[in-house]
């Protein structure tokens, strides 16, 4: 009923107003008559009636509110707000741009956080998935031994299911060019643990784990479509992998995401195209080698800690059963989620902190602009209040305005974010997990709306209350003259600028630390020479290259052929390349005449194999002795080259050359001993590893231990010119081999600093934005205060103050704000910087140089921002200034 009546009245609004007007006039006239008949003269009676009736405008306003919809007043406010914005385009553009940038940056970063940290991993109940590793005093996180894994799987009661996997790329040949595919060897139940199911066929059963049953494969949806034309009869079809016939027994659906692994690591999400059954070959009592990784699904009523406890108990049992291999280990149970995104969390949280700071600065800026405008609108508001507008109504009006501004800014920010997110994803380090999950999605939109709302209220509140709290008398009495603003208002504006400067200071210090650690990493001596070096990987199928001898001969021949190519300075083959996800291998050995170091540790080092020219091709310097030669072949005495760290650690103060080591537990003759013939420079595992590990190289003609080899070619000029020649040479030796991962050493080095570069680029960008905003804010406040003080400055100058005095007066205001802001910023940064500890490299988070230069820069920018209005102040003509009063 009421609603319907209101609706009807909506179309007769004019009639309603005129009728009300007439009714009220009638009322006043009647009252007037009454007064006249009581003996007042006409004039007196009219005034008395008007007084008695009170504020007519208010009566009308209230009556209208009774019949109006609430939305109508909002609409009215909105219309008014739009008019206000259009009336001052300069103000509108500055404030919208500021907010768009800040909200856009927040949206973009939140898209990353949502995609990487918040979105569920694409497995069933992903929070129940755990990775299982071993840990000891020497190796904080180590792979499992296959037979240990079998015992874990059989004995545990904590997990619903448990599986193991290991990286093992395969070469697919047959129709067309041979292709090397990312592959995993998996135990039965691997997909069941993840909660994934083949779209066709089935997964491996336990029988497939038995040696000899392994010629089966599960392929990816991508491979099925691209390589096999989505053949509906793919199940049961034979395909050639590593030159052997494998039967396809399953096809996984699209979106089967690799959970990431450590051993020969493939990052999370990388496309694995083929899964083959891991088989448990060998002697179950020899458990020294570790190369498979565990993954398991926790039972619903078991906690991570309980599982950890049970696994450790099992490990202790195994230690008693196999004292040679299984003592000294603990089991590590790590949630898959932390394993995948854990390392990125500090970086992302830092970026979130940075954009929140930018947003706060933008809010302070917007609040300041609104405050400045509110004081020039004081008269307007005073009139409204005097005419009887309730304060709540004025506050609502002003908040409507600030919300309109923030939502316009938010919409622009969202538009910015769409392109920003694309740029951000392109900029992400190559090994960043879940990059493909980063989009401006529904939760991101919700976040943006929330942030926009909060922003509007945050920066609108202060000006709204300030304005509504004004005494209408003040506003009216001052007439058309601008008011200087109360002391409280000036203090609020100054405080906002101090906060802005302080926050910008914090961000700049963060950016400075990021820059320094990036520079430190760029300046690092890698231990090899990166320019003009081409690299590639080959995997030699076991079926053809049955043992060390075949692999060694192939490598030697390839290196020799490559060395004869024109344009090649030096070419070598090794078992790996520096900085390419090197696994934590560690060969244990015995040194002639030395007891193993105390504390259960044995002599151990990273092991590699290389052909003679591998070192010169990579530019790894020789420190003592010699490189390998063609003479270091199969039946010659065994030789080894060690790195500087190994020489220093195991032969301190001695000459390591000529000393002997062995891998035999009980060396019998000289044949079992390996002689150190050279010492080469150190190469760290990763550019930011704290120090190089001990390492040695064996000549490839004598030992290989691997079927995956890497080719290194140092060229005279652009090494890319040699890519075709490399392919030809490989195929001349073996046309079935795929030449994979062709890249320049330059690219490898560049991608190794991609994370610090990303961190610096973004924090730097946000810090730049912050200091510009803070500069604009300072400029705004100083120039406002100059314009307010024009009469005062005019009087000072009329009384003989010099221009330089005026300049000093204005600049000292700016300096005071900047100084206080910087001081507070430096103190805040001092406390916040420790959060960056895991993100910086070889620079203290309290780096005095960074703190000092940022502080200097911030003060300089603020003074510069104050200088322009100061200049304007000195140009004031005292006569005009006084006349303007």
């Amino acid at each position, binding site marked *: 009923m009421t609603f319907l*009546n209101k609706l009807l009245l909506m179309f007769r609004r004019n009639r309603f107003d005129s009728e009300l007007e007439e009714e009220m006039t*009638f*009322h006043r006239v*009647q009252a007037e008559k009454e007064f006249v008949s009581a003996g007042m003269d006409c004039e007196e009676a009219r005034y008395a009636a008007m007084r008695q009736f*009170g504020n007519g405008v*208010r*009566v009308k306003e*209230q009556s209208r509110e009774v019949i109006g919809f609430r939305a109508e007043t909002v609409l009215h406010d909105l219309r008014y707000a739009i008019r206000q914005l259009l009336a001052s385009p300069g103000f509108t553009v500055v404030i919208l741009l500021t907010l768009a940038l800040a909200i856009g940056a927040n949206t973009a970063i939140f898209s990353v956080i949502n995609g990487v940290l918040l979105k569920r991993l694409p497995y069933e109940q992903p929070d129940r998935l755990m990775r299982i590793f071993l840990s000891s005093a020497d190796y904080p996180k180590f792979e499992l031994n296959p037979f240990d894994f079998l015992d874990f799987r059989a004995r545990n009661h904590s997990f619903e299911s448990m599986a193991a996997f290991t990286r093992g790329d395969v070469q697919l040949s047959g129709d067309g060019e041979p292709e090397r595919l990312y592959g995993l060897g998996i135990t039965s139940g691997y997909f069941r643990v993840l909660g994934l199911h083949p779209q066709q066929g089935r997964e491996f059963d336990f029988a497939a784990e038995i040696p000899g049953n392994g010629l089966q494969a599960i392929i990816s949806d991508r491979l099925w479509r691209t390589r096999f034309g989505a053949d509906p009869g793919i199940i049961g079809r034979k395909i050639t992998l590593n030159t052997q016939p494998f039967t396809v027994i399953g096809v996984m659906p699209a979106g089967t995401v690799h959970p990431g692994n450590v051993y020969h690591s493939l990052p999370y999400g990388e496309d694995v195209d083929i899964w083959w059954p891991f088989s448990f070959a060998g002697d179950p009592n020899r458990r020294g080698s570790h190369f498979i990784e565990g993954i398991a699904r926790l039972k619903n009523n078991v906690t991570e800690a309980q599982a950890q406890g049970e696994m450790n108990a099992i490990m202790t049992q195994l230690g008693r059963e196999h004292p040679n291999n299984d003592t000294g280990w603990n089991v590590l149970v790590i949630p898959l989620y932390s394993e995948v995104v854990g390392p990125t969390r500090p970086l992302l949280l830092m970026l979130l902190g940075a954009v929140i700071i930018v947003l706060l600065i933008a809010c302070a800026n917007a609040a300041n602009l609104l405050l400045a405008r509110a004081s020039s609108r004081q008269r307007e508001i005073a009139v409204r209040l005097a005419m009887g507008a309730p304060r709540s109504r004025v506050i609502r009006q002003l908040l409507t305005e600030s919300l309109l501004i923030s939502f316009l800014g938010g919409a622009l920010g969202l538009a910015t974010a769409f392109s920003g997110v694309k740029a951000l994803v392109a900029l992400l380090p190559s090994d960043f997990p879940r990059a493909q999950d980063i989009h401006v999605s529904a939760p991101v939109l919700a976040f943006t709306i929330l942030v926009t709302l909060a922003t509007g209220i945050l920066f609108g509140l202060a000006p709204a209350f300030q304005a509504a709290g004004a005494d209408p008398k003040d506003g009216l009495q001052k007439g058309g003259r601008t008011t200087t603003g109360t002391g409280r208002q000036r203090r609020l504006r100054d405080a906002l600028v101090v906060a802005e400067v302080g926050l910008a200071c914090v961000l700049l210090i963060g950016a400075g630390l990021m820059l320094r650690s990036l520079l430190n990493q760029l300046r690092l001596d890698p231990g090899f020479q990166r320019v003009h070096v081409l690299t590639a990987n080959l995997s030699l199928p076991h079926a053809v290259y049955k043992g060390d001898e075949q692999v060694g001969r192939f490598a030697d021949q390839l290196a020799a052929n490559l060395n004869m190519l024109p344009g090649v300075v030096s070419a070598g083959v090794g078992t790996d390349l520096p900085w390419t996800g090197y696994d934590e291998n560690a060969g244990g050995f015995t040194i002639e005449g030395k007891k193993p170091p105390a504390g259960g540790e044995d002599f151990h080092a990273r092991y590699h194999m290389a052909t003679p020219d591998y070192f010169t091709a990579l530019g790894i310097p020789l420190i003592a002795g010699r490189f390998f030669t063609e003479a270091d072949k199969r039946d010659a005495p065994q030789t080894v080259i060690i790195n500087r760290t190994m020489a220093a650690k195991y032969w301190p103060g001695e000459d390591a050359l000529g000393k002997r080591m062995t891998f035999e537990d009980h060396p019998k003759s000289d044949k079992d001993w390996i002689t150190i013939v050279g010492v080469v420079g150190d190469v760290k595992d990763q550019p930011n590893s704290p120090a190089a590990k001990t390492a040695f190289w064996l000549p490839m003609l004598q030992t290989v231990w691997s079927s995956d080899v890497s080719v290194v070619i140092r060229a005279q000029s652009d090494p890319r010119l040699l890519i075709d020649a490399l392919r030809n040479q490989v195929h001349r030796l073996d046309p079935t081999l795929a030449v994979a991962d062709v890249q320049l050493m330059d690219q490898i080095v560049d991608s190794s600093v991609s994370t610090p570069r990303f961190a610096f680029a973004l924090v730097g960008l946000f810090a730049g934005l912050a200091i510009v905003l803070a500069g604009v804010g300072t400029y705004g406040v100083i120039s406002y205060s100059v314009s307010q003080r024009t009469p005062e400055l005019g009087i000072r100058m009329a009384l003989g103050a010099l221009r330089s005095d005026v300049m000093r007066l204005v600049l000292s205001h700016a300096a005071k704000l900047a100084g206080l802001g910087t001081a507070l910023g430096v103190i805040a940064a001092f406390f916040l910087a420790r959060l960056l500890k895991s993100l910086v490299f070889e620079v203290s988070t309290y780096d005095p140089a960074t703190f000092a230069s940022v502080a200097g820069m911030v003060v300089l920018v603020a003074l510069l921002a104050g200088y322009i209005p100061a200049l304007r102040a000195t140009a004031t003509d005292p006569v005009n200034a006084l006349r303007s009063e």
Partner: protein
Amino acid sequence: MKKPELLPGTLDMLILKTLTRAPLHGYGIAQSIKRLSDDVLTVEEGSLYPALQRLLLQGWVKAEWKMTDTNRRARFYTLTAAGRKQLGLEVSQFEEMITAIGRVLSDAQEA
């Protein structure tokens, strides 16, 4: 001396009550309340007109433009059936409350 203010929530009831005798215009309603209460209650115009709009919306009164005795055009308000029912409801609620308050007050005096 300051006049006692109208009890909150009673204005609607008073307006409805004055309209039970005859249709009245806004000024008439105000005068009527003033007179009947021996000048104790005055109705502020600022509350009277918004209240009348509210009653109109609820459908408790009707309004029509008529000529007064002095031949002026004025809007006269008439009580509707729904308004009469509403008045009964409000009066009984009000009396209930007055009785309750009275009981509390007399108890306080005896003690």
